[in-house]
């Protein structure tokens, strides 16, 4: 996709490595992403495929002595219109961006809230830091935020501790916290995975509403294809640290061009379908095997050991991202044959 005027985030060739005892592993390799204002980009993939590492790299929140960005650029359009390359910013400049230009929501609402401070305290913290607001103004702003994420009786809730809230409310609170300074980009790392379906529906609706109202860009990480279909405009499918397929959601889901995406779609039990399958004695179409370990990557295409379409050529070289159509790409040399 072209870098347009309202591109908020533009990641190019991102490579992130981890230092482990036996050397270095590449957790995320040559990732290109762009997210425009008002747009939601979904990042899907199995556990360990590098979704969180990608989002943490954008925030530059990798623990310094363990992980680091090894290559690539991350351009962010900030609130004041300036575009900075986050990779080359100094730590103190980066700190001014976190929570201010970029907000982040994490997966586990319980563990990502500090248990010993009140919700209001934690939500008002970014306002105090980035806007130099005094305690009272910041608290009022926090209450307003809680209200806007749909928490009834916000003033009282602001004085409560995380453990006194239900899971859904906690996640709303972390969303309020991420939005406190009106960021241009919201990164949500599996914000609904820990929640019940009914609550998940609430949160998804809330995020959509907030995005519409604020016009921010959203990078939404999930492993649930249903959620992707629900919320995202475009999707990036990751496998073993690389992008394997990317394109508009409707296009990719209707017409997946990578065996992994196809497998993922097929292995989801579909509501209302099961009774038929059971009667027919059909099994769920599972992808065999497991995600390869970073320390032990197969040669060539990372997915080839599990791929039923794999041919010798797949083992020889890493397939390039092939263009299915201008906005749809697949990292499979047989993309044309598979359906």
């Amino acid at each position, binding site marked *: 996709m072209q870098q347009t005027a309202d591109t908020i985030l533009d990641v190019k060739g991102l490579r992130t490595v981890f230092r482990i005892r036996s050397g270095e592993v590449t957790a995320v390799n040559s990732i290109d992403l762009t997210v425009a204002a008002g747009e939601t980009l979904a990042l899907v993939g199995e556990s*360990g495929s590098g979704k969180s590492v990608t989002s943490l790299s954008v925030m530059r929140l990798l623990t310094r002595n363990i992980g680091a960005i090894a290559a690539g650029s991350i351009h962010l359009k900030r609130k004041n219109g300036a575009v900075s390359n986050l990779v080359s910013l100094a730590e103190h400049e980066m700190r001014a961006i976190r929570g201010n230009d970029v907000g982040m929501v994490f997966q586990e609402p319980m563990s990502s809230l500090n248990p010993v401070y009140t919700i209001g305290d934690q939500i008002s913290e970014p306002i105090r830091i980035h806007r130099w607001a005094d305690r009272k103004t910041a608290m009022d702003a926090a209450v307003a935020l809680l209200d806007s994420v749909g928490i009834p009786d916000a003033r009282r809730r602001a004085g409560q501790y995380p453990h006194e809230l239900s899971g859904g409310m906690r996640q709303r609170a972390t969303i309020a916290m991420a939005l406190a300074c009106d960021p241009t980009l919201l990164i949500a790392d599996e914000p609904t995975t820990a929640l019940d379906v009914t609550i998940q529906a609430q949160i998804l609706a809330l995020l959509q509403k907030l995005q519409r109202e604020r016009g921010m860009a959203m990078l939404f990480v999930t492993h649930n294809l249903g959620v992707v279909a629900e919320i995202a405009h475009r999707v990036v499918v990751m496998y073993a640290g690389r992008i394997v397929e990317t394109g508009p959601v409707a296009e990719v889901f209707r017409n997946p061009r990578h065996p992994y995406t196809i497998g993922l779609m097929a292995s989801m039990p579909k509501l209302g379908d099961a009774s038929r399958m059971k009667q027919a004695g059909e099994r769920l179409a599972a992808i065999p095997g*497991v995600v*390869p*370990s970073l*320390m*032990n990557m197969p040669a060539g295409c990372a997915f080839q050991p599990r791929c039923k379409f794999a041919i010798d050529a797949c083992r020889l070289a890493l397939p390039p991202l092939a263009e299915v159509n201008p906005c749809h790409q697949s990292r499979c040399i047989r993309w044309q044959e598979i359906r």
Partner: protein
Amino acid sequence: MLARNPARSPGPIVRSLHRFLLNRTGLLGLCMIALMIAAILSYPLWWSFKPNDIDLIAMNAQPGPTHWFGTDGVGRDILARVLDGGRISLLVALTSTVISAIIGFLIGAVSALAGRFADAVTMRFVDLVMTLPPVIFLLVLASIAGTGIWPTVFVISLLSWPLLARMVRSRLLELRERDFVMAARGMGAGLPHLLFRHGLPNSIDILVVFATLQIANAILLEAGLSFLGLGIAPPAASWGNMLNAARSTAVLEQYPWQWLFPGGFLVLAVLAINFIGDGLRDAFDPRAELN
């Protein structure tokens, strides 16, 4: 995930050993303690002075070529006494640590796993023991037990377990709710199984920390007992009663080698044991290989 490892992998004990050997400070500690024990056991072969031979002419001699560590107030060779005292101190410290670890673990574990009533009774008892001032406890136990190595071990063991019992209890209360313990119960596990198959391995880190602290503590308690005229009967040397010599201002000030050497050995031993403890904790934790 390491799921795709070669088919045959060595057994758990070999791997614990392997993990221990990977730990550099642990190895350092092991070397230190091994050297120390080797010296302690072999010194009669290479050192001509005996720990209890007095020499009133050479008393309070400074460290020098004949007496490397100097001599004490009756002319006994400090090096020989430090090494000989090491036998007793380490023996007392290790055995009493083991015994108090056993008592503390059993009481804490039973309290956590054997139901509410047992818990209430044992915990009140532990509280009671912990409110009792140690001097009195020490004095009474010691005067009942008398002097010598085994009474000393007995006294020190009895004095040291309550804190461990508490720590083990709180760990196991948490463990009790864990799924794999639930699974064991679901397969019909009784108290002994829970205690030894689950409670023990999962308290290893607590036990190791306790043990490393307790060894230092035991040596010091032994010194305290000698101070009260109990503990290791003189003239047998122990690091504790050698340190006691520093009570005399003359020794403290003018003959510092008489307490610096046993004190130094004590600190070295404790340091080494701490290192080993850290190594052991990792060795017993299969997850440690990951990073």
